[in-house]
């Protein structure tokens, strides 16, 4: 059980690390727009096939 004296501060550090990552993501605006990324993931990365968007 004595391992708890070591593990507990470790878990504290781990939690602190997670919180720091979360704060950084928040300040980067990760959660500002929760709707568009859900749509963007559906789109292909490649160029549109013959999707010629210029006027013909």
């Amino acid at each position, binding site marked *: *059980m004595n391992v*708890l*004296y070591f593990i*507990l501060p470790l*878990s*504290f550090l781990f*939690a602190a690390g*997670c*919180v720091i990552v*979360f*704060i950084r993501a*928040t*300040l980067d*605006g990760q*959660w*500002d*727009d*929760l*709707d*568009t990324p859900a*749509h*963007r993931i*559906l*789109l292909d990365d490649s*160029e*549109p096939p013959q*999707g*010629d*968007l*210029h*006027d*013909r």
Partner: protein
Amino acid sequence: MALTLPIDAAAVSADALCVHCGTAVPEHRKGGPGEAYCCAGCETLAAVFRGASLPKGTSGEDYAYLDDADFRRLYGANDGAIDFYLEGVHCSACVWLVDRLPQAVPGVKSAALDLSRSVAHITVAPGGSLAEAARRLESFGFRPHAVKDGDAELLQKKENRKLLTRLGVAAASVMNLMLFAIALYSGAGQEWGVYFAWASFAFYLPIVFYSAVPFYASTFASLRARRMSIDVPIVIGIAVGTALGVRNLFHPGQIEEIYFDSLGTLVFLLLASRYLVRRAQQKSLSSAQVVFRMMPASCRRLVPETGRYQTAAVELLRAGDRVEVRAGETFAADGTVLAGESEVNTAVLSGETRPEAVAPGSVVFAGTVNLSGVLHVQVDTSGAATRVGRIVKMVQDAAARRTPIANAADRIAFWFTFAVLALGALTLLYWWPKDSSLALNHVMALFIVTCPCALAMSAPVASLVSMSRAAKHGMLVKGPDVFEKLATVDRIYLDKTGTLTEGEFGVVAFTVAPGADAAAVKGAALALERGSTHPIARAIVAHLMAEGVCEIPAVDVRETLGAGVDGVVAGRRYSLRRLDAPAAAGEVVTSIALYEDNRQVAVVRLGDRVRAGAAEAVAALRGAKLDVHLLSGDNAAAARAAAAAVGIAPENVHAGASPEDKLAVVKAHPGAAMVGDGANDSAALAAARVGVAVHGGMEVSLRAADVYFLKPGVGALPRLVAGARETVAVIYRNFGFSLVYNLIGAAAAVTGHMSPLAAAVLMPISSFTILASSVRGGRSLR
């Protein structure tokens, strides 16, 4: 596939799905000819896949002003980055199209669409053209409006991030706290108990010194203003609980009673509910936060050096400038007509459906629409000094001055806090002489068991649930307090033009004289009116096309402005003339006569038709014990006719009211709701206890109104009223629950029958009951 499904045609039309992406088609895009698309993005993409070329934009705007140096400075777009509000973005197809803008337009560096706000952030390389990008966006089907990157929006974003950080820190800490709390409650023993208690304390510190700061700030603010708010008892609870917990840290005998976990949970839950309410509120706001579109974004201004007209942003117009306004365009400034003759639709300002004739010397106002001829106008006042600008100012003032109605939760919290504090003091006085530690324990149990958590959350959660349900029914509600205000409304003022009526010319009756050949007469009328852009002509053409009338070729068609149309059809001379008959006959605003070789063969009566469902809605509102009034800028005869058609008593009709009059009428009755859609209503909408903006109205009303209807007309109004009353009933039901629970709990705590631990277990149970009751909500909006 050979599989056919038995599809009920009626069901499909009622619940149509987009041909391209398969999501539901919104109401306003239904009913057109051909296949149904959910948005312009899908329609454009489907066309491109079929090999069609992109359509030209329909607004006729050329956006050249976007590349103007003055404009870019004004909009902070000197670095080539600008935000556009895009009309009609809706689904993945729209995201795809907008994100592909850099490939479609050379010079565009990046494009990113924020679907939740309908705002696209566009960056062009130095020398790249914003105008080109805007034109392409319009050809995709999304009309762009440049957005000034407002400080308010930026501030709001920062505030959101800060609140979310506090929430995240609280969440992480609380989850860790729980681990130790379970160990402690299940009997961790002496040595581990002390260790776990100190570990809990470590995780509790970020909550009390960081996450809970907004509660301290608001308590401080409300105490300074000598008000009571729900945050005051929360802060007292946190303070007492923390003090007691820290004391027990040093008393190994009471190490289980350190409350850090329950206090942390309390802070986390409160922050979470506030954050959710805030996001929901901002979402409904930003859908309504449409760019100020009462005035056009650009106009054609005379450049004196070259003698030519060039597009310029409206903000850059100054008194003395000369502008050209073509048929169908909106005036950008108040001014005097120098040359040209036309008719002007002034409905925005006056509510009058009848066009007004203008000639050189006439005064025209920003926001009104030029209907038929080209006009050259000298600008007298521009921007905020115009009549529309002053109305907008009135809206802002009325919205700012709106007296805050103390909501029920705050009122109850006031008494609740006093009662709990008094009880606590009494308990302490009674128990202290017997046993000081026992006395503190009982007081702590009292504060925990009477924790106002449920009280603080029940009203926002109930309103939030109703808000999201209302949105499903096409009603965007601006804030959680709207339901409470709406439930106390006893009178409703309805606007006429565009609210009860369709707000545009329609054919009420097409009467062919006895003895005349109906097919020939109608065919001739269609042939004559076909080429005209006049609203009367367009209404007649739409009516005849819907009837399936065959067009007969006409020759020598001549339109005389303000007089009528002449032409020769099948060898006979036909002419359309306006009849000078009195316009007061019911819905009819104006009448047109068709002459065949100078013999009158038909009379067309045109007017503003009452919307389907308006009469039923008014009846339902009267059934809900509401006093329904009509408040219109139109003349008395037209207003009374519309009132009679929907069942509003003649003594409840207020006609001929200017925007200023409407404001006065609404102000005179503080318990009234206002339903309208024009700019002429916006001041009244803001001043009313609850303002409801009906779709089709100017976006300025949305800034003033509390509720915005996506579907045109007042059909949804009775549901909204019933929903608001049920929401308030749910809130009071929750208060009832909470009161009963708190009374029993407090009695047990004060008499020493409840330990703080039992109280900490009971608290979440009561919160859960109340949350469940809130989420269930009322019936009308489900």
